[in-house]
């Protein structure tokens, strides 16, 4: 009986995941094919303009762009299931290859940014809760609100203006200098500015959440008991309140993936950092369908997985919390 329930539970989760991914792929496929702009342009470039009507027709036929959209979709799906995602029209390479050469960069930027954001937010949140309504708390709250109002791209611009252009301390674009591909120090140097923006933009949002969660906990009865027993403030706050706040924080981390991911994309674009984000904007601009499809699916799958894992962690740790409640607090915004 137990086993059957467990099977049902995981089956349900898998079903939700599959349906979400399917819906996403259909939507992305249809929308991208309906978009104006000639995909031939991205494939043949300037040459398209010199081609005759017949030549264009033949080229379309060859690429399969003439069939109805649903036929194209089924064909794409069949190939995709075999692991063949087609070639990128613009790079004239396998889509998987194009993405493979960039994904590492994004993972480094996004991954380190994610870890730093959440550790930093935890520290700041505790600091604020410790000094509730005293000057460090008020200062951080005011500063944090200001920081969260600054659009990512503008913060990146200001960073470049100050540290690259005026002070000339740090490089303003790329992931490494020419010829320094395997030089870790050089890469780290290029990573500092984008990473700072990613962390600064998201830090306060989560720090505020952990602060409020902690303050809510400090109002609970068990804190009184601890105090009556003579436990120190440090012990109560870190040993008890924090412990109670962490589960919802961890599930929030999983759910916040789209938030951080979207931000990384914009930062990548401003810093011309060769990652998935820059690639997405490029492929959207050049109507590079095959590439765009895979990039959107990749992003979507990571996000859906994040939501799913967040929900599961929640249900495991505290069955009282419904996944929906947490999603509600993690409003998806632009920054």
């Amino acid at each position, binding site marked *: 009986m137990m086993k059957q329930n467990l099977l049902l539970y995981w089956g349900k989760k898998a079903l939700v995941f599959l349906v979400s991914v399917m819906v996403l792929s259909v939507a992305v496929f249809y929308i991208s094919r309906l978009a104006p702009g000639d995909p031939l342009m991205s494939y043949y470039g300037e040459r398209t303009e010199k081609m005759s009507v017949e030549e264009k027709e033949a080229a379309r036929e060859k690429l399969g762009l003439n069939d109805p959209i649903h036929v194209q979709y089924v064909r794409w799906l069949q190939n995709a299931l075999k692991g063949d995602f087609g070639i990128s029209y613009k790079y004239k390479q396998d889509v998987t290859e194009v993405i493979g050469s960039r994904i590492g960069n994004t993972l480094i930027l996004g991954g380190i940014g994610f870890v730093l954001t959440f550790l930093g937010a935890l520290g700041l949140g505790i600091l604020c809760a410790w000094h509730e309504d005293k000057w460090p708390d008020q200062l951080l709250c005011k500063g944090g609100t*200001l920081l969260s109002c600054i659009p990512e791209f503008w913060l990146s611009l200001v960073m470049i*203006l100050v540290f690259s252009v*005026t002070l000339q301390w740090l490089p303003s674009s790329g992931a490494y200098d020419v010829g320094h591909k395997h030089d870790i120090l050089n890469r780290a140097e290029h990573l500092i500015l984008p990473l700072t923006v990613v962390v600064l933009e998201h830090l306060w949002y989560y720090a505020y959440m952990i602060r409020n969660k902690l303050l809510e906990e400090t109002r609970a009865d068990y804190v009184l008991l601890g105090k009556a027993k003579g436990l120190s403030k440090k012990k109560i706050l870190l040993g008890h309140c924090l412990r109670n706040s962490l589960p919802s924080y961890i599930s929030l981390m999983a759910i916040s993936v789209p938030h951080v991911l979207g931000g990384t994309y914009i930062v990548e674009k401003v810093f011309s950092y060769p990652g998935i984000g820059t690639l997405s904007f490029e492929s959207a601009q050049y109507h590079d369908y095959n590439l765009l499809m895979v990039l959107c699916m990749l*992003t979507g799958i990571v996000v859906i997985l994040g939501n799913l894992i967040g929900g599961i962690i929640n249900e495991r740790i505290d069955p009282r919390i419904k996944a929906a409640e947490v999603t509600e607090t993690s409003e998806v915004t*632009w920054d």
Partner: protein
Amino acid sequence: MGLTDQELFTPVGIRQIPEKPAGKQRWHHGFPWISAALMTIIVACCMGAELLMTKDPTFMDLQNCSVAPNAEFLFGTDTLGRDIFSGIWYGGRISITIGVLATVISTMIAVVYGAVSGVGPVWLDTLMMRFTEIFLSVPSLLIVLFLQAIWGEANMLSLSVAIGVTGWAGIAKVIRTEVRQIRSSEYVLASRCMGGRFFHVLRKHLAPNFLASIMFMVIMNVRTAISAESTLSFMGMGLPLEIVSWGSMLSLAEKALLTQSWWIILIPGGFLVTLLMCITNMGNYLRKAANRKESNL
């Protein structure tokens, strides 16, 4: 143990909150006066842009490209030779309009969607909420990008619609929760028994109940929309260069960086951030106000 008397006898009961005499607390308690004033000034100046402009904001004065702020060009000129001072007010109007328009669109979608989901049968509710979750899981940037790709060259309306249709999901969820709670109240039932249609019930009975709880989100939506407009225009996916807005002014930043023209980046961005900050403060005040009301009931 070295404890003073005071420490030994710290009261450990329920946190002592001094009782506020009833009626003393006015509605404007904690109202962000500075933010409200700044916001009013910026919005008023943008709406009356024609009175303030010293130059034609769209005129490209090619002899005066990237001129630093001086007496003639108060905030300098951009890399195309357009006067930034005039552009700030003229472009601000477009940015603010897009923000408000997008919010109106997303709020309307959210109200109808949330209310239908709230009063509908369970299967419909589940279906609609699942859809919202999928919708929320796609980064909104991607959706706007796609919509913009379909419509080609963006204008104010298409950009507002694109931003508007991506921002409704969060509000719709809150409305749905609120409506679920009051859908079987006697006054709703009575109204429906007397033949009240869906939109009548929504306007007369449901909306007054959930308005307070979504006000904060609606205000924050304006902020998100303005921020989205500037981000998209900056990326070259929003308004084209010819249409002056804070975002499209900032899209010249890459060239400005090469010539170290800080005013092209810092001045429009400064106005943008100031306005966003004011809106946030107003929103936070509204949220606190709404919560205060709830706890008193």
